[in-house]
């Protein structure tokens, strides 16, 4: 099972990283929509809420199809607002699918992230059910198909004494109560989604709930243009006395309909429940084996100064500050192992190196880098890559071809600045830190804190005495080897120029000038 999960994850990651690379080249990593899939869903939910309020004013449960037709006939407002509502909900499903696939591929679906994974699945389910109710509200041919299919599924359960499907055969007019229930669910479920969304991000310190402005306005503009130029039309009203021949099917919400209509209702339940169980159990079957799991952070209370930097930097709010009980004044950091994802970001935030997962603390890193340098025996022209295990993954061979070595770390945010200082002072020509793109960090905030520690004096800051000319940060995803190779070559050139310039500075002009005189005097 574990092998299968790993293969599946590797396959999805291979596809996603290729798509990432393509999108980065087109839009830059800052505006890559694939990196902002979660934030785009929130944006789209807000769009759905606003447009839904407008539609709610004109919708009538007593005449569902006619009232939606009237909205659609409002050429200047209603038509495109309805279209924006529809296209926005479609885009939301698309963004959710990308978001879920990304987290699955990155293995961010187990341990402390289980709550986010499960609440995300609940959000997806509620979104799909909410969409279902929205389509039934229109009561056109597609609505009829969805309602009849839903009733067919439910009728197989031994809980109703009367088949629900009879409600749609024209024996009686469909009561307004049915449409009221639909309307209620269509309003209540999205409101509930915002509550689940709060749970979804509750373990994240600083969730990015909205995409950057350029992407936000760009996405809205495109959806708006689509709504105006290609508005959603109206299918004929549902008619129980005509065979529903054709419908305009929304693939995002009713992708399953052509398949399930061919299956017995019992088989649909078995298949649906199995799929749900597999998705819900993902935190179990995507969890690495015990030996592959990193231990959560621990704190050396003797070293902790109570500065709170780790508490501020932790992306998962796994650290709290507690009053000291050892007779010393102040507070000290305590890690909740159930919330810690072992990213090691706290290790880099601690100047006295008193916190971090086993093997990843500042002290452990210094030991490792000491050994690394002992083996490397640096040349002043050498560039060492301090590479995030994800961003620089698979780059070792390429780097080694040019004479560079990679000092690998689990996350760029885990690199203690003392390691960088050590490398420079030990004599390497330059240090190229390879981090993931800021919005694609698997530990959320690694590149951000790295940048601030290196260039903006965030604790534990890189000391002023370290020559910044010998440092560079480059953001790359695992597929961007060509870009990374380019950045490495560029940095090597810059280090060579730096070495040449330094060699020139070392020439004592006075001495150079005096020598001939001395020679002359001597002669």
């Amino acid at each position, binding site marked *: 099972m574990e092998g299968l999960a790993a293969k599946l994850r590797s396959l999805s990651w291979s596809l996603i990283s290729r798509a990432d690379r393509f999108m980065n080249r*087109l839009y830059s990593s800052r505006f890559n929509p694939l990196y902002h899939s979660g934030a785009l869903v929130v944006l789209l939910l807000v769009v759905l809420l606003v447009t839904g309020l407008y539609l709610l004013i004109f919708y009538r449960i007593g005449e569902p199809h006619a009232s939606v037709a009237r909205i659609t006939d409002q050429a200047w407002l209603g038509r495109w607002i309805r279209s924006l509502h529809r296209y926005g909900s479609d885009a939301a499903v698309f963004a959710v699918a990308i978001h879920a696939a990304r987290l699955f591929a990155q293995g961010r679906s187990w341990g402390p992230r289980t709550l986010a994974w499960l609440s995300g699945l609940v959000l997806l389910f509620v979104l799909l059910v909410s969409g279902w109710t929205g389509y039934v509200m229109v009561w056109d041919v597609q609505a009829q198909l969805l309602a009849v299919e839903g009733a067919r599924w439910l009728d197989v359960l031994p809980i109703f004494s009367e088949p629900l499907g009879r409600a749609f055969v024209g024996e009686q*007019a469909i009561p307004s109560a049915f449409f009221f229930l639909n309307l209620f669910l269509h309003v209540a479920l999205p409101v509930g989604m915002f509550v689940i969304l709060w749970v979804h991000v509750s373990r994240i310190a600083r969730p990015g709930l909205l995409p950057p402005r350029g992407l936000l306005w760009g996405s809205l503009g495109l959806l708006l243009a689509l709504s105006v130029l290609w508005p959603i039309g109206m299918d004929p009203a549902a008619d129980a006395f005509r065979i529903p021949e054709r419908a305009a099917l*929304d693939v995002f919400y009713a992708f399953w309909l052509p398949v399930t209509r061919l299956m017995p209702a019992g088989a649909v339940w078995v298949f649906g429940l199995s799929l749900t169980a597999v998705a819900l159990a993902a935190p179990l079957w995507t969890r690495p084996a015990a030996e592959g799991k990193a231990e959560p952070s621990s704190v050396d209370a003797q070293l902790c100064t109570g500065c709170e930097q780790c508490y501020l930097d932790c992306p998962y709010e796994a650290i709290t500050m507690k009053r000291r009980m050892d007779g010393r004044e102040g507070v000290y950091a305590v890690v909740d192992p159930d919330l810690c994802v072992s990213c090691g970001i706290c290790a880099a935030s601690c100047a006295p190196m008193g916190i971090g997962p086993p093997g990843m603390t500042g002290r452990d890193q210094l030991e490792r880098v000491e050994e690394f340098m002992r083996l490397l025996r640096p040349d002043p022209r050498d560039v060492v890559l301090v590479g995030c295990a994800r961003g620089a993954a698979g780059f070792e061979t390429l780097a080694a071809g040019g004479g560079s070595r990679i000092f690998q770390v689990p996350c760029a945010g885990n690199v203690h600045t003392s390691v960088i200082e050590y490398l420079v002072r030990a004599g390497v020509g330059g240090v190229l830190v390879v981090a993931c793109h800021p919005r694609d960090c698997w530990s959320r905030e690694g590149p951000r804190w790295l940048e601030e520690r290196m260039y903006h004096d965030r604790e534990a800051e890189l000391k002023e005495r370290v020559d910044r000319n010998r440092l560079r940060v480059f953001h790359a995803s695992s597929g961007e080897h060509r870009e990374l190779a380019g950045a490495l070559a560029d940095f090597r050139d810059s280090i060579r120029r730096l070495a040449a310039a330094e060699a020139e500075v070392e020439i004592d002009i006075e001495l150079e000038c005096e020598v001939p005189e001395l020679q002359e005097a001597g002669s």
Partner: protein
Amino acid sequence: MSRLRVGLGVLVALLMTLAIGALSQVPYRTESTDQAWIRLSWRVSAPRIEKCRTLTAEELSELPLHMRRDEVCEGTGIPYRLRIALNGEGVEETLIRGAGTRGDQPIYVFRELRVEPGAHRLEISLTPEIARDVAAGYAEMETLELAEDLDLAAGDVALITRAAGGRLAVRRAEP
């Protein structure tokens, strides 16, 4: 960023947007309208057959005080036999029991027959399946029958349901 890259970026964004528009309204052929459907949908309240007996003193003593009754009755709803014939040929004969775990809830008929368009002779009967001597005690048992000539065009749906007075009738449009 080169012009080519900007242009490509805009193109990809437009294509993705158009894909959302296209996938939002994919033409879907749901059913073949070369056929016509006959739907059967109605309910019948089936009388309950009960067998009652008096509890022995020993049985009564085993029951809690508030549940002690001299006579207990166990039973189920009377099953009905549904017979459907189309153009003189039997297409279904089924015994239908009442809904619910005890089978004492109303009986529902909910069927769909797919037929060729054109004229059809439809005969339906729903009769209680019970011995005559037992049936004598249940004067209100319903028997439903229908014999009707239907002329169905392609794509038509005819609904057989209960009309005023409880008899079976054909309906061709919503009430």
